[in-house]
């Protein structure tokens, strides 16, 4: 990576009492990358993204976004990033239009621009047909689309998305994907966590895998594939081995990296 990274962390650590949720990770995300951050449940993905977006204080380590230290330049960083956190961070008792307008002005847009972009975004995410409906009455998918629209209203240089496709139907997912790809085309950097590995494989150019709080792999898909293939091959039938002549999928890379395998045949014999 030659260019100065858009996102970089040094020994980023977060402890919750005795538990080390994130254990000294060093992330580097270059400008314009569509970066997938993967890990099994409880690996530390959400904790990391919360720290990167200022929602959670690190116990140790350093975070730099766009070359700025997040601790000392929090406001400058936040002005240039967009966030869709786990809980979506919506204000339920506003209408979609009011919320977007509010979000735009909170990110420093003037009233005219905020109103203009609100209208455009509502049309784009197909939420303009119910102008009087409160956000609290939106379906989960509609809320996800609205949260995404609010995160991009100020044209951020970096976008952080925590599970953006969770609970979203195929049509809405298509809308969101095209929005994200458009942003990448315009030079933005996107950092997302997702459990849907097929989507990550299709969208992301670079991936990092976190396991038990530690970063166990980082690089482009090809780099990861090469790295995993160089290791000892897994046993047949464990779900982590590709068919002969086929490329290893991200799911297989992921399973090999985190050491997951399908063990139901030996265990839980009382099932079914």
């Amino acid at each position: 990576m030659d260019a100065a990274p858009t996102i970089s962390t040094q020994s980023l650590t977060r402890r919750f009492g005795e538990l080390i949720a994130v254990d000294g990770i060093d992330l580097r995300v270059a400008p314009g990358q569509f970066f997938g951050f993967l890990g099994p449940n409880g690996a530390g993905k959400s904790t990391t993204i919360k720290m990167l977006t200022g929602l959670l204080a690190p116990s140790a380590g350093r975070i730099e976004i766009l070359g700025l230290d997040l601790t000392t330049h929090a406001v400058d960083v936040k002005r240039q990033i967009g966030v869709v956190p786990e809980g979506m961070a919506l204000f339920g008792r506003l209408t979609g239009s009011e919320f977007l307008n509010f979000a735009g002005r909170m990110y420093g847009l003037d009233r005219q621009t905020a109103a203009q972009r609100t209208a455009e975004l509502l049309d784009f995410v197909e939420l303009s047909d119910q102008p009087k409906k409160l956000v609290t009455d939106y379906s989960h998918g509609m809320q996800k689309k609205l949260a995404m629209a609010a995160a991009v209203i100020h044209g951020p240089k970096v976008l952080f998305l925590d599970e953006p496709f969770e609970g979203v139907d195929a049509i809405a997912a298509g809308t969101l994907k095209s929005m994200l790809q458009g942003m990448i085309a315009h030079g933005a950097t996107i950092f997302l966590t997702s459990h849907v590995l097929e989507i990550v494989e299709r969208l992301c150019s670079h991936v990092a895998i976190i396991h038990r709080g530690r970063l166990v792999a980082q690089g482009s898909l090809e780099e990861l594939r090469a790295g995993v293939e160089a290791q000892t091959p897994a046993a047949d039938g464990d779900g982590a081995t590709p068919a002969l002549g086929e490329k290893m999928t991200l799911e297989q890379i992921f399973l090999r990296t985190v050491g997951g395998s399908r063990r139901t045949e030996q265990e839980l014999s009382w099932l079914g």
Partner: protein
Amino acid sequence: MAGIDIMNEGRLRRRTQLSAIAWLRWRLFLNALRTTQGKLEFLSRLLVSIAFTILGLGGSFAMGLLAFFCLSQGKPQWLTLFFWIIFFFWQIFPVMATAFGNNADSSDLLRFPLSYGSYFLVRLAYGAFDPASVIGSLWSFGIVVGVSFRKPALFPWTLLVFLAFDAFNLLFMQMIFAWVERWLAQRRTREIMGILFVLLVLSFQLIGPLTGRYGKRARPKVNKVVEVLAPVQGMLPPGLAADAIVQGIYPQWPVALSSFALLFAFAALAGCGLHVRLLAQYRGENLNESAAASPLPRDRQLRLGWSLPGFATPVAAVFEKEVRYLLRSGPMLITLIMPIFALLVFRLGAMNSGRRSVSFLTRAPDLAFPLAAAYMLLMLTNLVYNTFGGDAGGIQFFYASPVSFRDIVLAKNLTHVSILVVELIVAWIAVAFLYSHPALDITVATLAGLLFAVPLNFAVGNVLSLYSPKRLDYSKFGGQRASQTTALVGLLLQLVVVGMGVSVFSIARYFGNSWIATLLLLVLAGVSLCVYRMIFKRMDRLALQRRETLVAALCRA
């Protein structure tokens, strides 16, 4: 499980499930004690529980004594009054005191293979441990003891009536709650119900003044209504319970038994009402409220956000958001208009014709404006002391946005001040119409008093909002209060503020010049503003320190 027949298996499973639910409640309680806030909440609850215990045991003793006295005086029919008191307390107290309850949602348990019988039992168990049920049971048991002391032979019969009466109350309360829950499940019906409920409560306030005003002229008609109502109440559960005991004393067992049978029938009816509702819940009713899309208007105009001259755009944005939230919250709006309504109630009460003893405010109309102002501030503290409560998940947005918490808090405080100013103007006009024009010195002294009390309350409120946040739903009635810790700290602060205010006015009164009070209050206001400023300056740091607690407390589903 080959050796266990199906009946036994079902019984075993039910026992296991019920003990698992009891364990769950216990663990929830213990786990809540892990945090300092949880421990403080427990301490507050402990204090409230002590108050409830005193109320329950004291009331029980009083009921027993009164029942014994009635029987000794040969007037057992007075027992009716006690049963009606218990009934009203049992049914109305839970609505008034939802903040003190745990409000556990038993419908969450439906994801488990719980039998309908177990689900019904769990609901009843939750209801039986409600403070109103415990206190109501203690009171009615007091009657049993009182009657039995006077007539020991009647103990088994009185106990039976007590059980039927308590069962009725428990089932009736649960039935009402279950149906209200159903109507409250949808936001729109919830808001309509809430407004209707508050209007009902408000209309109760007017009964006294209006009957006082028109009662004399309509007394013959009222007497007629009372004559009709007296036998009707005898056919309702509290009257039936009393009658069953009274007839047992005389003794007229056929009448006593029929009253008891009717009481039992009422209990069964309430049980049926509850059963219908719970069965629908158990079968997984769908209360989806998503509306159909409305046709898109072609030529939409851009809706610009509000602007606040002299303030930054984010402050105006948060201000607009706060106002919109309040305007959409029937419960909050009604809370805010209560002081004006109280002025009306007091005035109507004072207009009772033929009564010499008029209300306090009519004797001292000069105090109407200061008291209304104090009441308004008190009502406003619901919002001020838990200012992020209504934001829920939106708190994450605040933390992720490039806006300082000082701006956010400033916008919220600005909203609250604006509300207070509007209310003060309305109150001043109301006082002028209903009582007399507030004198200039009193008006100025009141404003000076507010200048002292408002910044102090806002300063403490801003800190409490960060240190003891509680998620609120602005569309719901009941239970939408700040945490117990906040309530206790708020109470202490009000005692301090009122104490200082009384001292200041006493000094002014001693010197016979109310302008002295204004002067002293302005000095105190200076101190109060300094405190506010000092805390306000630290808001960003405090908000950062408290971010995890705040996000955890407000984003919890």
